[in-house]
């Protein structure tokens, strides 16, 4: 099993969710995060004082999937979340050792 973790631009969240549902993905966890990569922050001004925001708002989504499905999920997220501009984000794939559905106690792939 794998966990696909993607950091994407917040306004892309709904599109990604719809695309993944069409792929048969049943569950997603989304968190509001702040981050930067090559896209630096910007200079803001509050009451005459300039300041730099280094961190930009992003959304992190995590999806637990069958290892066989992971590449497809990664590709789909990348296609939908891309705008072509700096700051589109990154996708990471991590190994998932064990999983359990709390309600039924199912484990392994049955839990996903």
């Amino acid at each position: 099993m794998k966990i696909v973790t993607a950091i994407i631009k917040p306004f892309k969240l709904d599109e990604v969710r719809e695309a993944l549902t069409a792929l048969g993905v049943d569950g997603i966890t989304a968190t509001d995060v702040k981050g930067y990569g090559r896209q630096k922050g910007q200079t803001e001004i509050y009451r005459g004082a300039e300041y730099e925001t280094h961190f930009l708002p992003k959304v992190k989504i995590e999806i637990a999937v069958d290892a066989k499905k992971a590449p497809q999920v990664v590709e789909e997220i990348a296609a939908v979340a891309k705008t072509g501009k700096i700051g589109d984000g990154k996708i990471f794939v991590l190994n998932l050792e064990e999983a359990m559905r709390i309600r039924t106690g199912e484990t392994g792939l049955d839990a996903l």
Partner: protein
Amino acid sequence: MFTTSTKFNLAIAAGAGSFFALLPAGAIAQELTLESLRSETAFVFNTLLFLVGGFLVMFMAAGFAMLEAGLVRSKNVSMQCLKNIALYSISGIMFWIFGYSLMYSGVDGGFIGSWLPYSWPTAGAINEGDYSVGSDWFFQMVFCAATASIVSGAVAERIKLLPFLIFVAILTGVIYPISGSWKWGAGWLDGLGFLDFAGSTIVHSVGGWAALTGAIILGARKGKYGPDGRVNPMPGSSIPLATLGTFILWLGWFGFNGGSQLAFGDNTNASDVSRIFINTNFAAAGGVIAAILIMAVIYKKVDVTLALNGALAGLVSITAEPLTPGPLTAILIGSVGGVIVVFAVPFLDKLKIDDVVGAIPVHLLAGIWGTLAVVLTNGDASLMTQVIGILAYGAFAATASGALWFILKMTIGIRVSAEDEYDGLDKAEVGVEAYPEFT
């Protein structure tokens, strides 16, 4: 049998008879002349002006509370709200025990009134004079409370509650009334011809001086100023609240300036109050637009919080003379207030004076400008006398408030610990978080 004219005369007599039957006993006991009717009507309307103007100014307490709550960070909002409701309550009581008499009783061209709690005629009593005694006290009381409100914004996010409230008690019980007596209490400055219609100096600059000395003696918020002149912004928690607060203050100002005509019982006075409302509105508008234009030119982006401050600075600027200016002058006077704010706010940061809400530019600096601007439209004003007044109030208010802050700092301390400041005053001093569900 009864002719039309007889019926007509009978109708008049019946009407007059019912009218007289409805009059209060006092009016019938004294002889009902046109003069006494006019005078009692004027009494009632003057009193009405004080009461309505008074509760409009009272509502400025909500304006201050919301403006400040919106401009401080979430972790300090409960504290700001608590400070505002507490200071308003303390002011009212102190102004009864000490304030009004110090300001108005027996000043006689001098520097101070008398030390006595004030009292009002009993229920059902006829009041002497042109307006009810209580209405005059009420109207003056809300002005005193407004002065105290000015201070709470500048010292926000790092002041301890108890010393702040002690400061407010003495500001409203002693400092404000003594200085107020010099002009409104018919004291020495009044004798010199100093003019301050609704309190650009007496209320706003006095509050502003107390805010300035407080901000300096208290010190800046931790992390606000960095090395090499770096300024770290600490954006407020709610722009809608700040905006609402500003509009409430704008509304209240019609009572603040309009009520200061002190009379509403005849054509001229009612018309003058109308003029005052209009000029007050124009000055606020001028302040907003000037602030927006300057920001658009200098910063490209228009900071809403400075636009809000611009409105208030415009209002403070017109407060010393809201009657005599024409519309264009009123707009221009207010505009200068807006200009002052846009430049003074970053300037104070350069001096490392941390004024969280812009109280010092809005009330002290615009208050000084407003007091000087009187000479532009009021022929009875002299620049020299206005300057003397500004300097006298400045010297007294700065010294008295500075000494008081210093004494409080040396005795019980005025600043929370660094850790409490970091955790937020809501947790440290109030025990109630303003936004407990926002993690």
